[in-house]
């Protein structure tokens, strides 16, 4: 869609400078206000090409820019369901989207932390329109917030990076402090931090925006300021006025870069979720996306991606985790042949001292044995084979228990389930538990039904 001639023309036109009046009128036709060129001595406004905007609360500084990159994209409903479950259909309307990022006087939160710069961005003419509202002093906060409320009324889908925990609650506090301006709440809020973390944490460790840009989106934002300096730069500007303007201009640029990064990331994630099968990505990323899709309930595509990430080759630990998750999905879909296949791969080498219960991944093997036992008992109806598998898993657990102490909760529960299963499997048909004269199965001592695994283990070693 972005290739249509109409949009291409708009993109070209947008690159040409527009008369200021036209610009502001186009940007917010509803609100009545006037925009003026910077006053003499207003070096920050001049540095940034900003303008003073006023409303009935007073004035503030606005900086507007248009970037051809990232290019506009159209939200895909299928992808939206994954990124923002429960969002209304209106969320797919690109004209409703607003990217938001604030710069604040601190990270502590509370009523004394201000958002002195509110950066917004949306698609316009095929590119990204960035609009930054800045309070040159605290008395401009109300007018800034009124403008922001207008923008929020026009565009009802918020897209942020960590905005659910930081930016939005902070703005809500600021609005509440005015006691007069009540913003319309967004119909949907896409906070990309959490899905991004699910997808890329395995590869990158931390997922800061600048890092995602470099490692995932493939561009380097170049020199940028250290974000911890931002509050002090603003305080210096408040006190030092004009002389502190140049350093503060860097904060505007930083905010612009954050917004552009955010929009690029949104496009990237939207694409990943809409057409995961087209993705040419790192196997780790593929695995990350499969987990995101699985968590959002898109089992079909999740399975496809799991298969692809396994084909592409994952590190051992992740490979086993992926197989286990895939097997569970296959089982839920009723694709038992694939599930059995995966369980057999996972359990290969388990038992006979091959696996210990020390690591969660090692437990995967034994849990796979349990699943196989279940399969042979219920589906194939081979109780002897099922019992053999359960015994194999229990034996491996006991080897593990000797080397690691104490066994974890998962190992303990697994052992309890296996013992229960064995009791049932080894019970003669029509018999009832605990009937006198029936020998206790080798791995099941009477009276130990409810004991913890550790206690069973002690009892067993006592026998020897």
């Amino acid at each position, binding site marked *: 869609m972005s290739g249509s001639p109409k949009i291409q023309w708009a993109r070209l036109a947008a690159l040409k400078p527009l008369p200021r009046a036209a610009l502001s009128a186009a940007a917010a036709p509803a609100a009545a206000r006037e925009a003026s060129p910077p006053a003499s001595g207003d070096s920050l406004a001049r540095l940034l090409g900003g303008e003073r905007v006023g409303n009935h609360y007073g004035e503030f500084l606005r900086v507007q820019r248009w970037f051809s990159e990232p290019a506009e994209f159209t939200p895909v409903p299928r992808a939206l369901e994954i990124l923002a479950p429960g969002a209304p259909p209106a969320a797919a309307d690109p004209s409703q989207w607003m990217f938001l990022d604030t710069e604040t*006087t*601190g*990270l*502590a*939160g*509370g*009523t*004394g932390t*201000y958002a002195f710069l509110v950066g917004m961005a949306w698609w316009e003419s095929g590119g990204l329109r960035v609009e930054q509202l800045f309070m040159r*002093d*605290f*008395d401009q906060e109300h007018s800034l917030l009124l403008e922001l409320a207008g923008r929020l009324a026009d565009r009802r889908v918020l897209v942020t990076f960590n905005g659910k925990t930081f930016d939005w609650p902070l703005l*809500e*506090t600021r609005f*509440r*402090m005015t*006691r007069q301006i009540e913003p319309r709440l967004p119909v949907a809020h896409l906070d990309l931090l959490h899905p991004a973390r699910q997808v890329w944490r395995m590869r990158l460790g931390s997922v800061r925006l600048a890092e995602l840009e470099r490692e995932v989106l493939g561009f380097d934002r170049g020199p940028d300021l250290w974000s911890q300096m931002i*509050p*002090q730069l603003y*305080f210096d500007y*408040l*006190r030092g006025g004009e002389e502190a303007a140049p350093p503060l201009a860097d904060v505007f640029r930083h905010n612009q870069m954050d917004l552009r990064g955010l929009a690029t990331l949104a496009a990237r994630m939207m694409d990943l979720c809409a057409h995961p099968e087209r993705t040419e990505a790192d196997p780790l990323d593929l695995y990350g996306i499969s987990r995101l899709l699985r968590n959002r309930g898109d089992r079909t595509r999740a399975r496809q991606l799991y298969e692809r990430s396994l084909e592409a080759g994952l590190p051992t630990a992740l490979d086993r985790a992926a197989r286990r998750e895939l097997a569970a999905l296959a089982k839920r879909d009723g694709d038992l042949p694939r599930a059995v296949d995966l369980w057999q791969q996972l359990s290969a080498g388990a038992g006979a001292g091959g696996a210990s219960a020390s690591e969660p991944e090692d437990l995967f093997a034994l849990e796979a044995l349990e699943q196989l036992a279940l399969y042979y008992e219920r589906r194939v109806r081979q109780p002897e084979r099922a019992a053999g598998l359960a015994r194999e898993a229990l034996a491996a657990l006991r080897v593990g228990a000797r080397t690691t102490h104490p066994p974890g909760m998962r190992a303990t529960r697994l052992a309890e389930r296996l013992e229960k299963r064995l009791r049932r499997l080894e019970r003669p048909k029509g018999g009832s538990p605990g009937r006198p004269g029936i020998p206790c199965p080798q791995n099941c001592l009477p009276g130990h039904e409810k004991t913890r695994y550790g206690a069973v283990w002690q009892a067993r070693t006592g026998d020897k």
Partner: protein
Amino acid sequence: MTQTLAVHPARLPETARLSAPIRAILDDLAARDAAGEVLTAVRHIPAREAQWAAMPGWVRPALAAAYAAKGISQLYTHQAEAAERTRAGRNAVVVTPTASGKTLCYNLPVLNAVLENSDTRALYLFPTKALAQDQLAELHDLCHRLEDRFGVFTYDGDTPADARRAIRERGHIVLTNPDMLHTGILPHHTRWTRLFQNLKYIVLDELHTYRGVFGSHLCNVLRRLRRVARFYGSDPQFVCCSATIANPGELAGRLTEKEVEVVEQNGAPSGEKFFVLYNPPVVNRNLGIRRSYIHETSRLAHEFLSRGAQTIVFANSRLHTEILLTYLRRKHPQAPATPDTICGYRGGYLPNERRAIERGLREGRIRGVVATNALELGIDVGSLDATVMAGYPGTIASTWQRAGRAGRRSGSSCAVLVASSAPLDQFIARHPDYFFGRSPERAFIQPDNLEILLNHLKCAAFELPIGPNEEFGAVELQDLCARLAEAGYLHSSGGHWHWTQEAYPADTVSLRSVSSDNFVIIDDTAGPEVIGEVDFTSAPTMVHPKAIYIHQGQQYHVERLDFEARKAYVKPVDVDYYTDAIRYTQVHILECAQTEPLGAAAGEAPAAARNHGDVLVRSQVVGFKKIKFFTHENAGAGNLELPENEMHTTAFWLTLERPLVESLPFSVSDRQCGMFGLLHAMETVATLLLMCDRRDLGVSIGDRSPSPGASAAADAAAAGSLAEMASQDLFEPNLYLYDAYPGGIGFSEPLFRVCDVLLEKTRELIAGCACEHGCPSCVGPVGERGERGKQAALAILGRLCE
């Protein structure tokens, strides 16, 4: 209320029906005190009948039914009065003793208002988390009976994060403490919009604890609270409860800065009670030495305990709590592996440990408890049979408060105050009428103390920008804001002062002590285990290296004190001594605010000067003594190198001029003894004049340090010979009485003003004391002061009072 009885309990009137153990014990005590020197007073407080009032007609039937189901169908008169006044929209403070049903005074009107309008919100403030928990149980019970028609929650540091949102929305009554209000609620008031918009009542329980520094902080927190409430359009009224103090109405008025009405006609019943002043027998009359009051306390407690009376023992320090616990446990050995029937209770025990002890006391399983003032507050431990106090608690109010721990609704109870050799104790023991006849202390606060005020001003600016017409305390607000702006904290914009720091100011302001840090005590014999904690100021004296730290009677040797990490590593030991830290204090004058000559006859050079101003107090724990249990012999000492503590505060001081010192007909050492003795007595009198807690004042003697005044004096002596110059280093002392709180708490200027009275009363105290050469009651024990210390002190006073 009290009625004097003959000293000899055998002559008790028939009406005073003692329950058997108490009678037997008092008989025994009297029998051993043939000369009548030990039991200096036995007062009988007769039983009181309940005075009833009907449940007010405006109480909702559901609420009345809920109370009736709990067995409350009519009210005590004070409850009805408090409820009526609150209902009428007035602020009230209820002043009645322990266990007189105070909580109903506020619960009834508050719950009724919630039932009438479910938007109504109330905030309850308790000085400690434990008290809030205690109240929660009672309110939950009522809530249950009212079919959960209101939400009541505690909100403190222990509240899980996921429960907080629900509390903010659905809590009709939020129980919290001043510290949480200060750091957790006010700086996030936008999250509490519903509460603040509908805030109708603020309940301050245990009002009397909010005095001194803590009270000064609370007053400022309340200023902030009212400011935020105003922002949301509400103007809450106050309901306060207080133990008996001299000025509950005044304190409530100063704290809330509103008109508060006092309700003090107690309608609750009580059993009869005996109050005994016990002065340990004299063992050396010349030296004024009496038997150890700690021993005597332990002996008395033992008598009560061994005859089945459930007993609480109060000690004035944590150390003495543990020593007394050690003694009592030795006297009451119990089978190993059975739960303790005698326990300690003090700050520094972990919360679970404390809850278990409170429960044990209520259930009667624990027969004896040795506590610090931690049990003085209204924590519900049930009523006990006897209270034994080791030493005068320092104020009349807290003496009555502690005595109130013993007192059954019916039957008899007994409170014994065992006097120590400290001057105040001796004074009270010898003048029982003074004690019984005197009103309890006034509670002071100084909310406009600059240090405290500035801290809260920062917090207030963080919460809401400070406007041009606002008021905050009795200070030039705009002026202070301008100063804070210069320091980079605030910025003025559009007539308002805004907060301009990244930090969150409430986090750096602790309401309770100088530093919010505390030290944890770790026993790492078998893997690290935290056994207790101690606050920053007490750490150097309690857990310095090589100290014996005692916890629940178990001794621990402090192996290492990691001052930076705030950790003390200890190991259990069994030794026959405890340690007492030696603290060294030095005062430097920063700025003398006012100085005036004293004792100057016409045309003569003044003998001395009175002054007050800003000082720097440096103190350091420099060593410790090892003291044997039971004999209290000094069994060795050690030096310590611990960091120095510095504090800016205000002080009142006397300067004794060289001519006066030189003209005294005493040896150099006797003169010095006289000065120390004088200061000792002045401190006693000052605490009485100021009606403050002894811990609020510090004393020190130092050589006069160079000051503008001193250089003027040097000019006058410029014509003097070189010999005189050499004698400059002669002891020319300043006698300091300083406020033991950073920034000062406002005692110095009043002391400067009443200096004449202070000196006159001090002279009366020393001259009127029957001892020969000085005793703990006047100038200090003769062992420390020498034979002529008392005379020297009187000689100095003679010159000053001319």
